[in-house]
């Protein structure tokens, strides 16, 4: 229950971190440590080198850009939770962060760390899937960007080369006054979800849905966008009855099975969580005229 011995590096810039990752063998990155530290303490990971990103101020940023928020990978979850800018431009992220661990872990945990850990039932990867986020990664070889949909390479495995690090996440704006809802079912609050759902809605003056996004976490190895439900929503007047009807399709999704729940239970939760997330999204839509 004590971490193995490693050499410690704490670069001050992204470039230094990249050059360390390019030259060191068996090196791991340390972000907020709220998942990596337990894995080190239990010796699930045994790196020869640990590169701590905690001193890189350039990665701890919330930047307003036209059409999107650009967030540095080392931004603490607690800073996102309390950011007026995030609340105004990306309320789904604020909804979701209430479910991420606990206050003590959010004080240290980062958005980039959570995305790279890529637990299938974690909240922040599903938020990125729901919003069609763009991921920027950097190495000594250069910088590349990818849509979040291409970021998961497999179960808890991001599509990062061993020398690459996630630097920024871009969250595209949804129109002012859009609906947003995030719900999850977990055995205890603060645990990873068994199943979670994130929903976004845009309606016109008559209440007809013009745009919809529905994402499920905890169902597959990575967040699942439920395109069939999204398509079934657009063009119809938003109502709890409509949501009840269209979310039945979630029962047919392929679902994981583990010690926490069998696949059939996850499919049932997928239906219920989807419906509740859409209900919450509808309830959050600002009244017409705003």
């Amino acid at each position: 229950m004590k971490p193995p011995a490693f050499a410690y590096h704490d670069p001050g810039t992204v470039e230094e971190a990249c050059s360390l990752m390019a030259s060191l063998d068996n090196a791991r990155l340390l972000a907020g440590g709220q998942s990596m530290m337990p894995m080190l303490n239990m010796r699930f990971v045994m790196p020869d080198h640990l590169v701590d990103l905690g001193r890189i101020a350039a990665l701890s940023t919330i930047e307003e850009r036209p059409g999107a928020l650009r967030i540095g990978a080392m931004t603490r979850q607690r800073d996102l939770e309390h950011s007026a800018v995030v609340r105004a431009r990306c309320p789904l992220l604020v909804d979701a962060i209430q479910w991420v661990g606990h206050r003590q872990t959010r004080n240290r945990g980062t958005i980039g760390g959570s995305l790279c850990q890529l637990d299938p039932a974690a909240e922040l990867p599903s938020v990125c899937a729901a919003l069609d986020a763009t991921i920027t990664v950097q190495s000594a070889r250069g910088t590349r960007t990818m849509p979040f949909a291409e970021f998961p390479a497999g179960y808890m495995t991001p599509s990062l080369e061993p020398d690459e690090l996630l630097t920024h996440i871009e969250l595209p704006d949804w129109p002012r006054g859009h609906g947003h809802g995030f719900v999850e079912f977990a055995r205890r609050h603060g645990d990873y979800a068994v199943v979670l759902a994130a929903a976004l809605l845009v309606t016109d003056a008559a209440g007809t849905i013009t745009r919809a996004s529905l994402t499920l976490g905890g169902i597959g190895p990575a967040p699942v966008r439920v395109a069939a439900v999204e398509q079934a929503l657009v063009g119809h007047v938003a109502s709890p009855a409509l949501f009840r009807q269209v979310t039945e399709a979630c029962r047919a999704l392929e679902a994981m099975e583990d010690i926490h729940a069998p696949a059939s239970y996850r499919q049932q939760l997928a239906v219920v969580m989807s419906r509740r997330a859409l209900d919450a999204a509808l309830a959050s839509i600002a009244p017409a005229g705003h």
Partner: protein
Amino acid sequence: MASKMAITLNVNGTEHEIRVEPRKTLSDALRGECGLTGTNVGCEHGVCGACTVLMDGAPVRSCLMFAVQAQGRELRTVEGLAASSKDGGKLHALQQAFIDNHALQCGFCTSGFLMLAAGTLEQQPDIDDESLREVLSSNLCRCTGYQNILRAVRQVRDAGQGGAR
């Protein structure tokens, strides 16, 4: 490769110059190198909260960070709550409330709960009941059933004594 590093930890206003391997967690350094054994180590993977300390005023789990990462930060542990014995040794309001409300039995989780509650009340002196339950639910106690801990913290909040001795 795992040679010791010389670092300085500022704990409860006192500078501790210590030498630690980089793999030494903050909780182990506080106990072993600084001699501050009030911080307890329970699960060592961030689940139980017994090792909660305040870093720059915010509650963190000291088993989930390395001592070398705490350089230049202001740390507070349970030893810093009461007045020193030469200043009369008066207990912090939270410590007194824990005694008065039977909010501890075996005491293993107590320092973690005290630091969590102290940090929370300093940041949010008028925190509502629901939020307080949510905050306190992050630490484990196997003796009290939590109600007495809630009662103790609520009492200190209601008396406006979150930062008081």
